């Protein structure tokens, strides 16, 4: 069997996923042995036209990281989908929208205003300059990708075969995926290459009957290292988050932020966290409900930190329709 052809792509993400591939250390040599890289813009100089020239389905595997929020990202996602036999959503942004997905809590215009007008670092002459999709110069037409109104997870744009979640995916999971692909022993399509249960299943902390009397933000307390963080009042997304990371944040005494996305049965990670946290909050009086609301400063940003684009409503509703 000849060497496989692999493509790696970086869309709307921080780039950490690109580094994560290198986190496998010397095993990168195994990858190199198993596969020829045909596209990896971050590391090697390929042109989109090289990919366009390939026959459909001639790439064996595409590891696609990042969400989709621009026309370029969508275009390349579609291109790579057509050329690849197996499409892997690599990392939280591709799987569930990730941190970029939080942009869905605001609007494109608000973002552009912030970046090109309001930011303290902007020094202008009073005439804000915004990026333009089309610019005509003497030499001809220049084009920039269009920034979309909302961020999408990869599967909202193209069909995805496998999901490899994590911010970023851990070396172990990457190697699990690489080995499965290299040996052809692939799980059923649509599978998430991570655990089946939630983080609590592997969390080493002692868990008791849950009740919370006060919610703290991570900077407000130093939690006890042995005890369940949620029971200590820190919002830990672990109970509604797929296991697979090995509880790394937990071991660093930080609560889970939910980057692996929800387990299979959960339709909406944020809704489930709202339900669970509110259920175990102690107190039945209006005052205690008010206290809870006060203590949970940013529910959407907390419960949908990585899953806004993946949520049932996907984004903030813009404007009042029908009026």
């Amino acid at each position, binding site marked *: 069997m000849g060497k496989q052809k692999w493509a790696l792509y970086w869309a709307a993400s921080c780039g950490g996923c690109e580094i994560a591939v290198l986190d496998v250390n010397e095993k990168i040599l195994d990858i190199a042995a198993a596969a020829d890289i045909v596209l990896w813009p971050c590391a090697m100089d390929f042109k989109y036209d090289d990919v366009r020239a390939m026959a459909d389905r001639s790439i064996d595997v595409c590891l696609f990281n990042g969400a989709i929020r621009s026309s370029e990202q969508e275009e390349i996602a579609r291109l790579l989908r057509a050329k690849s036999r197996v499409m892997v959503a690599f990392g939280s942004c591709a799987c569930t929208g990730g941190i970029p997905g939080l942009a869905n809590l605001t609007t494109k215009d608000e973002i552009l205003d912030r970046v090109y007008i309001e930011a303290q670092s902007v020094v202008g002459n009073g005439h804000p300059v915004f990026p333009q999709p089309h610019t005509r110069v003497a030499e001809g037409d220049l084009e920039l990708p269009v920034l979309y109104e909302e961020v*999408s997870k990869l599967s909202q*744009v193209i069909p995805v075969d496998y999901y490899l979640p994590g911010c970023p995916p851990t070396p172990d999971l990457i190697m699990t995926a690489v080995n499965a692909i290299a040996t052809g022993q692939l799980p059923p399509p649509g599978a998430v290459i991570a655990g089946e249960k939630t983080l609590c299943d592997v969390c080493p902390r002692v868990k008791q009957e849950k009740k919370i009397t006060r919610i703290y933000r991570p900077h407000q307390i130093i939690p006890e290292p042995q005890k369940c963080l949620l029971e200590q009042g820190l919002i830990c997304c672990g109970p509604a988050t797929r296991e697979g990371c090995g509880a790394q944040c937990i071991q660093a005494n930080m609560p889970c932020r939910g980057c692996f996305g929800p387990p299979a049965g959960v339709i909406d990670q944020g*809704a489930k966290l709202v339900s669970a946290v509110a259920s175990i909050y102690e107190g039945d009086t209006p005052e205690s409900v008010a206290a809870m609301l006060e203590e949970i400063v940013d*529910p959407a940003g907390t419960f949908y930190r990585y899953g806004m684009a993946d949520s049932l409503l996907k984004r903030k509703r813009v404007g009042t329709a029908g009026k």
Partner: protein
Amino acid sequence: MSFEPRIIGILCNWCSYTGADLAGTSRMKYAPNVRIVRVMCSGRVDPTFVLKAFQQGADGVLIGGCHPGDCHYSTGNYKTARRIPLLKKMLDQLGIEDGRVRLEWVSASEGDRFQALANEMTEQVRALGPFRPAAPSKPAAMEVAALAAG
């Protein structure tokens, strides 16, 4: 044509649903916009249901339970009384107006209260206008299904 809001009422079997039944047996007329889904306890209401209703095109969601202290299952409604306000705080961040989601206590004997609530909420939501989940997504989401099929 005037806008007719579609409102989902998720009501507990023992108090609110029975209260709505009583409104019926008492022949109290109210806006036909509220459509009722029965659960055994308002504590069964998963916030997912509310989001799903909006995603499916509901314009408002009314959740009904037993009055505090009267829950058939003793404390189920207290859980709802915490979940829905937290959900509403989150929905506010998602641009969903306060009046589109209401948690109300209606006892089995309060047919008139249910009638009033149904009317009141219908008008409230009518004033807010139709709910559209979000701006149409720029990536042609519709094509995804076609691609998947092909």
